[in-house]
C-alpha cells in the first residue's frame, strides 16, 4: 500500500489518498487542524453517521425486539459521537460544540469511513455492516483503554462494553441468517459481498493516528484480531469470506461515497433552518 500524502502538506492539485491519485479532489483537513481534532472527528463521525443510519430502522424492523435493539445500538453510538465531538470542539478551541460539528459541517468536512454510509438495505446488509463495524470498534476501544489521553481512555472504558454487545448482537444474527433458511443464506452472503469492499479502509493508514503515538491506535494493528473474529463468525454461519474487486478509501480525509450527501441534509436541515436557535 502506498503511504498517503500528509494532508498538512496538501494544497491543491494532486493528492494521494491511500494510494489513489485524485487530481481534482483536494482533501481536508486543512493545515491548521491538530491531529487530535482530526482523530476525534474520525471516530466521532463514524459513530454519528452509523447512529443516523440505524435510527432510520426504528418502526421498520423485522420484529419489535429489533426495533428496540437497533434503536439501542443507535443510542450507544450517538452517545459515543457526542463525547467525541464535544471533546474535538474543546481541543479545537474555537467554540464549536457537538451540534456545531454535527449540523454545521459539510460533507467534505466529515471524516467517517465509507462503511457507515452504506444505506440500510435489507436486514442482512444492516447486520453485515454492523458485524464488520462493531468488530472493528471492539478492537479500537480495547486499544484506546491504554490511551495516554484520559478522555479517550475514559470513553473507551464505557464504549468497549457497549460495542461488545453490538458485536454479539450482529454475530447472533449473521449466524441465524447464514445458517437458517436458504433464502436468508443467499441474502446474507449477498450482504457480505455488498459490505466487504469497505473493510480495508477501516485499517488504512491515518496521518492523525500516526501523529499521536500513545494517544491513538494504529488502525493497521487492529486487523489481525478483527479478521480472526469476523472470519470465524462467517465460517460458523456457513458463509464465505468475499473477495471484493474494489475497495473504498478516503473517508478520513473527507472523500466520501455519494450516500453521505443525502444522509447529511436530512440530519442537518432543521438545525440549519433556524440559525442560532436553541432546541
Amino acid at each position, binding site marked *: 500500500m502506498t503511504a498517503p500524502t500528509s494532508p498538512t502538506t496538501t494544497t491543491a492539485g494532486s493528492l494521494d489518498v491511500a494510494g489513489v491519485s485524485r487530481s481534482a479532489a483536494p482533501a481536508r483537513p486543512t493545515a491548521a487542524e491538530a491531529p487530535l481534532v482530526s482523530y476525534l472527528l474520525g471516530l466521532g463521525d463514524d459513530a454519528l453517521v452509523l447512529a443516523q443510519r440505524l435510527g432510520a430502522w426504528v418502526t421498520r424492523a423485522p420484529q419489535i425486539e429489533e426495533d428496540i435493539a437497533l434503536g439501542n445500538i443507535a443510542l450507544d453510538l450517538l452517545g459515543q459521537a*457526542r463525547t467525541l465531538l464535544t471533546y474535538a470542539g474543546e481541543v479545537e478551541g474555537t467554540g464549536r460544540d457537538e451540534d456545531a460539528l454535527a449540523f454545521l459541517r459539510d460533507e467534505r468536512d466529515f471524516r467517517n469511513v465509507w462503511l457507515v454510509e452504506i444505506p440500510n438495505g435489507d436486514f442482512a446488509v444492516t447486520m453485515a455492516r454492523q458485524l464488520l463495524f462493531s468488530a472493528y470498534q471492539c478492537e479500537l476501544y480495547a486499544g484506546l483503554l491504554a490511551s495516554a489521553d484520559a478522555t479517550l481512555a475514559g470513553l473507551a472504558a464505557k464504549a468497549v462494553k457497549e460495542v461488545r454487545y453490538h458485536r454479539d448482537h450482529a454475530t447472533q444474527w449473521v449466524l441465524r441468517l447464514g445458517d437458517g433458511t436458504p433464502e*436468508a443464506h443467499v441474502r446474507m452472503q449477498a450482504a457480505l459481498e455488498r459490505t466487504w469492499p469497505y473493510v480495508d479502509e477501516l485499517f488504512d493508514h491515518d496521518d492523525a493516528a500516526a501523529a499521536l503515538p500513545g494517544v491513538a491506535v494504529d488502525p493497521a494493528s487492529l486487523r489481525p484480531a478483527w479478521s480472526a473474529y469476523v472470519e470465524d463468525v462467517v465460517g460458523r454461519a456457513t458463509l464465505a469470506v468475499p473477495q471484493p474487486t474494489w475497495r473504498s478509501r478516503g473517508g478520513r480525509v473527507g472523500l466520501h461515497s455519494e450516500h453521505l450527501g443525502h444522509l447529511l441534509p436530512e440530519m442537518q436541515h432543521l438545525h440549519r433552518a433556524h440559525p442560532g436557535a436553541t432546541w
Partner: protein
Amino acid sequence: MTHEDAAATLDPALEAELQARFDRMIAAEERIEPRDWMPEGYRRTLVRQIAQHAHSEIIGMQPEGNWITRAPSLRRKAILLAKVQDEAGHGLYLYAAAETLGVDREDLLDLLHTGRQKYSSIFNYPTLTWADMGAIGWLVDGAAIMNQVPLCRCSYGPYGRAMVRICKEESFHQRQGFEILHTLSHGTPEQKAMAQDAVDRFWWPSLMMFGPPDADSPHSAQSMAWGIKRFGNDELRQRFVDMIAPQAQVLGLTLPDPDLRWDEESGHWRFGAIDWSELDRVIRGDGPCNAQRMERRRTAHEEGAWVRESAMAYAAKHAAPSAEAQPAEVAA
C-alpha cells in the same frame, strides 16, 4: 385447553361457585391472576383492551419515529430515540400481559394488520414539525397518563403491574414534551409559532383520546364494575383539562378553544364542545395517516418475515435433542 373449552365443559353449579368467588375478589379489590377462573366476558374485554393498548404503543412509534433522523440537536435525537424505544418496550410488556390470558402475540399482530383490532386514533394525525414532538409528549402522553394511572389498580394483576412501569416512563415522556415546548415557546418567534401550531393541531384530538362521553360509551359501565376501569371518560377528560390549562399559561401558549375558562364555583376549567364526528370519521379510517400507519406496520412485518423464519429454522437446527423431547409445560 383454552379458557373457552374449560367454560364449555364446566358443571353449572361449579361455575356459579367460581363466579361467586370471582365476584367476592372483585368486591374486595383483590387481584385476579392468570390461573384464577374468570368470566369469559372479563377475559375478552381485557384481551381487547390490552391488545388495543399494545397496538397503540407500536403504531405510536411512527409519528415520533418520523423525526429521529431530523431532530435538531444531538441531545434531542438521543432523547427521542430513547422515548420511541420505551414505546416499543411498552408494547412488548402489554403483549406479554395479553398472553397471560391465553392469546398469542402473533395472533394479536395479525388482528392489527388486518384491521380487526384498533389502536388509538390520535396516531392517525401527522407530525408535521419538530414542535409536534413536544405536543405529543405534553398532550398525547399527558392524556395517556390520565387514562393509565388508574389502570395501575386494574383488577387484573399482570395488566396492573405492567402499567406501573409504563406510567413511570410516560410521566417522564410528558415532562420532556413540556420541556420541548417550553424551549420553543421561549425561543425565536419562528420557534414559538411552531409550538403554537403544534398545540393547535393536537389539542382537540387529545381530548378525544378519552373516548366518547360516558352516555355513549357502551362498555364503560361493565368495565367499571369489573374493576378494569376506575373512572368515566368525562371525569378523566376534565382532570386532563384541569392539568393542562394552567401548564399552557406557563408555556405562554394558548389552547385553541374560545370557550375555555376557569370556573371558580366548580373549581374546574370549562371547555367547549368536542366535534365527535371527527373522532368517528378517523376511527372509521378516514384520518390523514390511517393508511400510511397501517402500511408501514404491515410492510415491516412482511419484509421481516424471511428474517423471523430464518431465526426459527436456525433454532430448530441447533436445538439440543433433549430440550425438544421435553414437554412444553415442563420446559416453561
